[in-house]
């Protein structure tokens, strides 16, 4: 039966004010079942206050083969990190 079920990605918000984070994936026949399964598989130890599920096929992913052109150009551009400024002492939590 499981082989007929599509794959779903599960995103859980661990507490109010935080963003939903990707927790993992599971199989389910439809969105309702995916939510219930996600509740049982990923939130049974009190991990969340909200769940999103999305069918995996609806996610467009970057191709690892293109990592060179996509990500490597950013590696030597350290000036894009805001590390060259002196922060005044009054500024906390930066």
């Amino acid at each position: 039966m499981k082989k007929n079920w599509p794959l779903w990605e599960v995103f859980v918000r661990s507490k109010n004010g935080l963003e939903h984070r990707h927790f993992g994936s599971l199989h389910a026949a439809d969105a309702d079942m995916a939510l219930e399964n996600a509740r049982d598989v990923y939130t049974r130890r009190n991990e969340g206050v909200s769940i999103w599920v999305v069918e995996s096929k609806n996610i467009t992913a970057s191709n690892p083969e293109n990592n060179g052109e996509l990500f490597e150009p950013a590696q030597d551009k350290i000036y894009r990190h805001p590390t060259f400024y002196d922060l005044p002492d009054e500024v906390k939590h930066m």
Partner: protein
Amino acid sequence: MKENLYKYILGIADNSLVLGQRLGELCGHGPSLETDIACTNISLDLFGQVRSYYQYAAKIKGNNATEDQIAFLRKEREYLNVLLVEQPNTDFAYTIGRQFLFDIYHFLFLTELQKSHDLNLAAIAKKSLKEVSYHRRFSSDWIKRLGDGTEESKRRIQEALDSLWTYTDELFHQTEADKIMVSKNIGVDTPTLKETYYTEVQTILSESTLEIPESKWFQKGGKDGIHTEHMGYLLSDLQYMQRTYPNMEW
């Protein structure tokens, strides 16, 4: 010792213990990883409820009785669960059918038990109700999926419901202890739940395009300690550890 209250608590708790044990048997054997975890989650919810009931029962029993003794060291005739919950898992349709037929009752029962004049029981009922409300949602959803699913799933769930139907009437059977507890405003007057129960069950079965089963007569006995042939095997699994290594603790 308050004999009737003690028996009354066991009558409630043993249902959850035995059903929890049945669901626990699916651990690692569920039809898919997701339903496996769902069934064992429900099992753990039920065991959690059982502990509250047995701790209270142990207090009433006195003589240093413990929840473990009550759970693991009674003889078959001393278990007071209904016959429905001890029926075997057979297949996923039986597991869901049994769960559904019990959950609808369990929810109605706990809703009323919240009003008990026994404050311990009322508190346990209140705490358990959220869990049971999810159980009911889970099993009702599956009834609809199986009933309105494929030809095979429909045939199987119909067959499961047809053969479990004969155990539903016992849910509303009252023992002497039950009647005395009702008269003291401690117990739930289960016959008053019967009509609502069958209406709710029938509504969901109809939505699931399933036939309402019919039974000419209904099995009972579990609440008086007279069980079906499945119970002994279930208990030998459940009690193995305490019988083999008496007084062992984790």
